[in-house]
C-alpha cells in the first residue's frame, strides 16, 4: 500500500476511529446514601450523558478524549463538576449535596400551625375552614379541631393549653384586634367577626411565638390579609340566617383595588321555627359592613386598609334560678368599629420596612332585669377604644438569617358604667422588641430575641426573653425547642378596681417534632407552661395566683391515601391546675378538659361537584363548681363527656357566569347531650345545666361570586 493510500484511509476513517466508545457508568446518591433519581449526568460541552434511574444508576457511551469534565445536576441539589479520564471506561460514585433552597430550609415554628402560602406549612387554608363541617365557616371554630384547643363552646375565644380565652390574642397584619368576637349572651358565645376569605394565611400558634407579639399569655392567632384580587368581582349570599353582598374592583393597571361589603343577619325567623332553649326578647340581628383598599405602591411596596363596622342587638329571657317563678331578661347591644392600615416596602440593601396603624372602638350596652320583680333593671355599659401604631425594620443577613427590630405604642381608653357608677381608665402602653433568626446551617437555626413593655396604668416595666432552636432531619422532618416568657395585663374588669395590679406571666417550654410533605402532616408536641402572678379576687384584688399546664399533643393530616379525601385527626392531653380569681387553692379550672380529640374528613366527589364533610369532636368532662361541696372538694365534680358530630354538604356549580356554592350544614347531627357546667342559685339548692342555647343548628345557604369585568370573560371560563 502506498503512503498515499495509507494516509487516505487514516484521513477518511479518522472521525470514525475517534468515535470508538467507552462506557461511563455509576450511581448518584445524596449525603445520606439514598439514591438520587432523575439527575442529569453529562460531559461538559457535549451531548453525551444520561439521566439516573430510580436506583440512582446511570450508564452511557462516550468518545474517548482524554480528560473531560463531568457535570451532575439535579433540581434541589448543588451541581457537581468533576474531572474524569475518558480514555477508558469509568465506574463512578457521585454524591450530590442538597442545595440550600428555601423549600428545604428549616422553619422556626414551634407551637405554630402555619396556613399560608400553599408550598409552605399549610394546615388550614380559607377553603379548608369553610368546608370544615360543624365549624360554620368560623375561623376559630375550625381551629378548635387542631390540637391544644378546648371545646369551650359555652364561651367566646380560643382556650389554649390550660389558658383562658383572654390569653389568646388575635392579630391582623401585625395589628392587635381588641374584640375579635361579636358580643354574645350567656351560654351563646359570639362568633368571630372576620370572614375566613379575608385572609390568605392563618397562623395559629399555641405557644412559643415570636417577640413581635405581646400581651398574650397562651396563644396567638395571626391573620394575614389577602393581596390584590385577581379580578373585579361581585358576590352575594343568602341563607336561613341572613343575606350578604359585596363588590370588589381591581383598577385597570392592576395596582389598586377597593371593595365594600355588607351583611345582615337576623335569627328571629329561624328561631320561630326551631325554638331555642331561651326565649328571644331582642333580635337577634347583626348588621355588618366593611371596606378595603389595597395599593401596590411599587414592585415591592404594598399599602392596605381594612375597615369594619358592626351593630348587633340580641336578648333572651330565661327562667330565674335565683327567684323561682320569675324571669331573667338579658339584652346586649353592641357597636364595633375596627380599622387597620399597614404599609410594607423593601428599602434596599436587605432592609424591609413595616408600618401599621389601627383604631378600634367597641361598645356593649347590657341590660338585665328580673321580671316581674323589683328593683329596677341593671344597666351596664362598657366601651373600649384602642389606638395603636407599630413600626418594624427587618434586615436580611446572608441567605436566610434576619434581624428584626420594632416598636409598638397603644393608647387605650377603657370606660365602664354600672347603672350610675363609672369606672374609667386610660392606658399608655409602649413596647420594643428585637429578634434575630440565625441560620447556623440551612438545616439548623435559632431564633433569639426579647421584648420589653411598659404600661402606664400598671406603672410597671417588663422584659420577656424568647428563644427557639430548629433542626431539620431528612427531607421533611424537623425538631424544634422553644422557650419564652409572656406577659399580659390583667383583664380591664380587674384593673378598673385596682390600679396596683401587676402583669400576669407565663413561661413556655416546648419540644416538638413534625413531618411535613405536600400531602401529609404529622406533628407531636410536649409542653410545660408555668403561670405566675395570676389575678386573684379574694381576699381582695392581688397577683398571688399561679398555676401550670403540661401535656402532649398529636396531629395527623393525610390528603393522599384515599383519593379526593382529606382528613385530619388531633388529640391533646392536658394536665393543668391554677389558683386564680376566687379559687381557694390550685385546681383544674372549669374550662379545661384532660382529653380532647377531633376527627375531620372531607370527601370531594368530582362527578357531582360535591364536597361531603364530617367532623367529630370529643372532650372529657370539665370540672364545675358545686357550692354544696366542702372547700376541700372545690371543683371536684365533673360534667359528662362532650361529643359532637357535624356534617356538611357543599355543591359547587356555576349559574350563568357566577361561581356558586350551595351549602347545607348540620351541627350536632345526633343531638347528643352537651353539658358545659352547672349554675347554682346562691343558696346552693337549685341548679341549671349550662347547655347550648340551640343544641342542633341547621344551616342552609347559597353563595355566589362573579366577575364584573367583561374583558375577563375568557378567564372566567377557565
Amino acid at each position: 500500500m502506498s503512503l498515499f493510500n495509507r494516509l487516505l484511509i487514516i484521513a477518511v476513517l479518522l472521525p470514525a476511529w475517534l468515535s470508538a466508545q467507552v462506557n461511563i457508568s455509576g450511581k448518584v446518591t445524596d449525603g445520606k446514601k439514598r439514591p438520587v433519581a432523575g439527575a442529569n449526568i453529562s460531559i461538559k460541552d457535549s451531548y453525551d450523558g444520561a439521566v439516573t434511574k430510580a436506583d440512582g444508576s446511570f450508564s452511557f457511551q462516550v468518545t474517548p478524549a482524554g480528560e473531560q469534565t463531568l457535570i451532575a445536576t439535579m433540581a434541589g441539589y448543588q451541581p457537581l463538576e468533576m474531572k474524569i479520564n475518558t480514555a477508558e471506561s469509568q465506574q463512578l460514585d457521585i454524591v450530590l449535596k442538597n442545595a440550600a433552597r428555601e423549600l428545604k430550609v428549616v422553619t422556626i415554628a414551634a407551637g405554630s400551625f402555619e396556613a399560608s402560602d400553599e408550598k409552605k406549612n399549610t394546615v388550614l387554608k380559607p377553603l379548608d375552614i369553610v368546608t370544615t363541617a360543624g365549624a360554620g365557616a368560623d375561623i376559630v371554630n375550625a381551629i378548635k379541631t387542631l390540637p391544644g384547643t378546648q371545646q369551650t363552646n359555652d364561651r367566646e375565644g380560643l382556650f389554649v393549653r390550660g389558658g383562658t380565652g383572654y390569653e389568646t390574642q388575635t392579630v391582623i397584619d401585625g395589628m392587635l384586634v381588641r374584640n375579635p368576637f361579636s358580643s354574645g349572651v350567656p351560654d351563646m358565645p359570639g362568633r368571630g367577626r372576620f370572614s375566613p376569605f379575608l385572609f390568605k394565611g392563618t397562623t395559629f400558634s399555641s405557644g412559643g411565638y415570636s417577640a413581635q407579639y405581646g400581651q398574650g399569655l397562651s396563644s396567638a392567632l395571626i391573620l394575614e390579609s389577602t393581596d390584590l384580587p385577581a379580578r373585579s368581582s361581585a358576590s352575594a349570599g343568602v341563607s336561613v340566617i341572613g343575606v350578604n353582598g359585596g363588590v370588589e374592583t381591581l383598577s385597570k393597571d392592576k395596582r389598586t383595588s377597593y371593595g365594600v361589603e355588607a351583611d345582615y343577619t337576623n335569627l328571629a325567623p329561624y328561631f320561630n321555627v326551631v325554638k331555642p332553649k331561651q326565649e328571644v326578647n331582642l333580635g337577634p340581628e347583626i348588621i355588618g359592613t366593611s371596606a378595603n383598599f389595597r395599593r401596590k405602591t411599587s414592585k415591592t411596596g404594598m399599602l392596605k386598609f381594612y375597615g369594619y363596622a358592626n351593630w348587633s342587638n340580641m336578648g333572651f329571657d330565661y327562667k330565674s334560678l335565683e327567684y323561682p317563678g320569675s324571669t331573667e331578661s338579658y339584652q346586649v347591644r353592641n357597636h364595633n368599629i375596627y380599622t387597620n392600615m399597614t404599609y410594607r416596602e423593601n428599602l434596599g440593601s436587605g432592609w424591609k420596612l413595616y408600618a401599621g396603624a389601627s383604631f378600634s372602638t367597641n361598645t356593649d350596652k347590657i341590660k338585665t332585669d328580673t321580671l316581674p320583680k323589683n328593683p329596677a333593671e341593671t344597666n351596664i355599659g362598657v366601651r373600649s377604644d384602642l389606638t395603636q401604631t407599630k413600626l418594624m425594620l427587618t434586615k436580611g443577613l446572608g441567605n436566610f438569617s434576619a434581624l428584626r427590630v420594632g416598636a409598638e405604642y397603644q393608647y387605650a381608653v377603657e370606660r365602664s358604667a354600672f347603672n350610675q357608677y363609672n369606672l374609667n381608665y386610660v392606658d399608655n402602653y409602649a413596647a420594643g422588641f428585637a429578634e434575630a433568626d440565625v441560620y447556623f446551617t440551612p438545616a439548623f437555626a435559632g431564633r433569639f430575641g426579647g421584648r420589653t413593655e411598659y404600661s402606664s396604668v400598671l406603672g410597671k416595666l417588663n422584659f420577656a426573653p424568647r428563644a427557639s432552636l430548629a433542626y431539620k432531619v431528612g427531607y421533611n422532618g424537623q425538631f424544634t425547642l422553644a422557650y419564652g416568657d409572656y406577659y399580659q395585663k390583667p383583664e380591664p374588669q380587674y384593673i378598673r378596681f385596682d390600679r396596683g395590679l401587676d402583669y400576669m406571666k407565663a413561661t413556655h417550654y416546648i419540644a416538638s417534632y413534625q413531618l411535613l410533605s405536600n400531602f401529609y402532616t404529622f406533628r407531636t408536641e410536649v409542653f410545660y407552661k408555668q403561670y405566675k402572678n395570676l389575678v386573684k379576687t379574694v381576699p381582695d384584688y392581688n397577683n398571688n395566683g399561679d398555676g401550670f399546664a403540661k401535656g402532649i399533643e398529636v396531629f395527623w393530616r393525610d390528603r393522599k391515601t384515599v383519593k379526593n379525601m382529606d382528613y385530619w385527626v388531633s388529640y391533646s392531653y392536658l394536665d393543668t391546675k391554677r389558683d386564680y380569681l376566687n379559687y381557694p387553692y390550685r385546681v383544674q379550672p372549669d374550662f379545661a378538659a384532660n382529653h380532647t380529640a377531633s376527627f375531620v374528613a372531607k370527601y370531594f366527589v368530582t362527578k357531582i361537584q360535591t364536597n361531603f364533610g364530617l367532623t367529630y369532636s370529643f372532650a372529657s368532662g370539665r370540672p364545675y363548681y358545686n357550692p354544696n361541696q366542702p372547700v376541700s372538694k372545690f371543683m371536684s365534680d365533673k360534667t359528662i363527656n362532650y361529643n359532637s358530630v357535624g356534617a356538611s354538604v357543599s355543591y359547587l356549580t356555576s349559574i350563568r357566569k357566577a361561581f356558586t356554592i350551595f351549602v347545607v350544614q348540620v351541627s350536632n347531627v345526633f343531638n347528643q347531650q352537651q353539658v358545659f357546667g352547672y349554675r347554682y342559685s346562691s343558696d346552693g339548692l337549685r341548679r341549671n345545666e349550662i347547655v347550648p342555647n340551640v343544641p342542633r343548628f341547621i344551616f342552609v345557604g347559597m353563595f355566589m361570586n362573579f366577575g364584573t369585568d367583561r374583558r375577563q370573560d375568557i378567564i372566567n371560563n377557565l
Partner: protein
Amino acid sequence: MKRFLLSLVVMAGISSATMAQSAQYEQTMAKNIGELDSTATFTPDALLQKAGLFERIGGAEKSQWQPYYYAAYCNVMSALMQKDKSKVDGLADQAEADLTKAEQLNGNASEIACIKSLIATARLTVDPMNRGEQYGMISAKALEEGKQLNAENPRVYLLQGQALLYTPEAFGGSKTGGKALLEVALQKYAAFKPAGKLDPNWGEGYAKQLLQQASK
C-alpha cells in the same frame, strides 16, 4: 496531482470533524424532536430521559433556545402525566428553570407562553380545590399572552380548547366552545410554518384526536 488529491481528502476528513458539531446539533435535535411523537417516548419516565438529553444539548450549544424549550416541554408533559402528584411540583420547577433559560436566549415568546400555561396547569392538578382559582387564572393568562404575541400560533388555540373541554361545565367549561377552538387550532395548523425546522411544531395530531373524542 497526488498531493493535491491528498490534501483534499485530508481536508475533507478534518472539515467533517469540525462541521460535525452543527450538523450533529441539527441531526440530534431533529431525531429527538421526531421521537417525541412516538408513544414509546411519550411516557412520564421516557420524557424525563429526553428532558435530560435536551438539557445536555442546551448546555453544550449554549446559544440555542430550542433545546431548553424542549427540555421544559418534556418536563411539563411528564409532570402532567404523573400518577404520583407529589412529584409534580418538582418537575414543574425544573420545567420553569429550563424555560427561563429558553427565554434568556430570546426564544419564541408565544411558544414559551404556551409552556408557561402548561406548567400552571400541572401545578393546578396537585390540589385542584385550593389551587384551582390561582393557577387556573395564571394558565389562562399565559395563553392570552401567547395569543397577543402571535395570533397565528395554533398551540394557543389547542390549549385553550383543551382547557374548555376538561373544565367541568359547572365551572364554565364547554364542549361546544372547546370544539370550536380546536377547529380554529386545526385551521391555524394548516397554515402554520415554523420559523426554523427545529422550532416547535407539535400538537396537530393531538388536536385532531381531541376533536374526535369531543365529537363522540
